[in-house]
């Protein structure tokens, strides 16, 4: 069974985004990054641990009625570096792209160092430099390697 066949195992969407080739087990973190927990009424389909030619096993997330912003794609790349983003309009894939790791992510992650000035109510956004295997706070140098989804900034 090909990846395309697997994609069809969850329902097609009319307009929105299909995030494919998410590392197996990361789909719920992807939803957390997108701040989707079902309470907003979004129509979401999730495939987890489905076979993949490229990854062996992968997750897929389909979100009806929503196209991802560049900032959201940036942070997705940190936990799903192999992901592909398909923008769907009227059942057709109109844009297909792979995520690329940015050099810096701004305003998305919150520094876990409670003594970091970026968490002290100053008029700045958090800023993290993206390294090969981690991200690093642009203010206090704290390194984040694991569980980035747990550090997504919330208002």
């Amino acid at each position: 069974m090909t990846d395309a066949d697997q994609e069809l195992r969850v329902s097609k969407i009319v307009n929105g985004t299909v995030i494919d080739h998410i590392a197996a087990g990361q789909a719920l973190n992807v939803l957390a990054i997108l701040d989707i927990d079902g309470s907003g009424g979004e129509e979401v389909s999730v495939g987890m641990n489905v076979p993949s030619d490229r990854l062996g096993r992968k997750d897929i997330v389909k979100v009806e009625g929503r196209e991802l912003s560049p900032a959201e794609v940036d942070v997705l790349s940190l936990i799903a570096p192999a992901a592909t983003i398909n923008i769907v309009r009227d059942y057709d894939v109109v844009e297909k792209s792979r995520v690329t790791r940015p050099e810096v992510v701004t305003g998305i992650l919150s520094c876990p160092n409670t003594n970091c000035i970026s968490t002290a109510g100053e008029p700045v956004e958090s800023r993290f430099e993206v390294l090969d295997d981690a991200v690093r706070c642009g203010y206090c140098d704290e390194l984040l390697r694991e569980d980035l989804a747990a550090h997504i900034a919330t208002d």
Partner: protein
Amino acid sequence: MRHDHLISARQLSRGDVETVLDRAAEFDAGERVARDDDLLGLCFFEPSTRTKMSFDTAMKRLGGDTVDMGTVESSSVKKGESLADTVRVVAGYADALVLRHPSEGAAKLASEFVDVPVINAGDGAGQHPTQTLLDLYTIRENAGLDDITVGIMGDLKYGRTVHSLAEALTEFDVRQHFISPESLRLPRNVRYDLHEAGADVREHTDLAGILPELDVLYVTRIQRERFPDENEYREVAGEYRIDADTLDAAREDLTVMHPLPRVDEIAPDVDETDHATYFEQAHNGVPVRMALLDLMLSGDGGDGR
């Protein structure tokens, strides 16, 4: 120097360090300049004796003057003013700012809000790059800066002077040994930088095994307040205390340094030995900070000022 601000020792190349230290040596030898029109803003959000006084002295010895924010209790910070606002106001009075703050990253943040150079004089457990410059000056005077073995002992986790020094030493041919209780090892981000720089680094929990190899032993205070349990502190603190007898096992030319203040990690009997260099180290703060201020205020870094 090619920097508008001095925030972290990671900014300092070997060439930068040598430029500052050579200039410091000139000031140490009695050179005078007249920076009569320059004002340095002192923003100390934490208590400080040596660092604040040496910056104040350095600026006045250059012929300039200082304006001092005063204590946090007597300033508008007490009314809830943000750091960003405070430094913007002081930057309107001064040609450069020196900032000490209890939060990591404070100097970096301040540098984003002002048009004058910001010098980090200690940000929480983060960095203290001007202390590092005077440490390097002291090491160069006593042991040279290449093909040496340096031991750094004490609170390596929270000690900002350690973080800056360790990173700066990667620019030189230095073997670095870190000695601390397991709970106070170097933080992950500093170990990452040392690894990325390809530094020759070893970590130990005991000084005895490595002491005879050292050219320099840099001691820092094991900070009682960092331990959740007083007994846990007592167990380790004694093991990281040196006295004259401890140093019997050291090389004759070992240089013992400490950023001060010390509490009991270096016994007073060490003061009488030829190893003790910590007071000379503290005095070196003035020429080194004179050099740094002169270079930054002259705009000799090609930064356009």
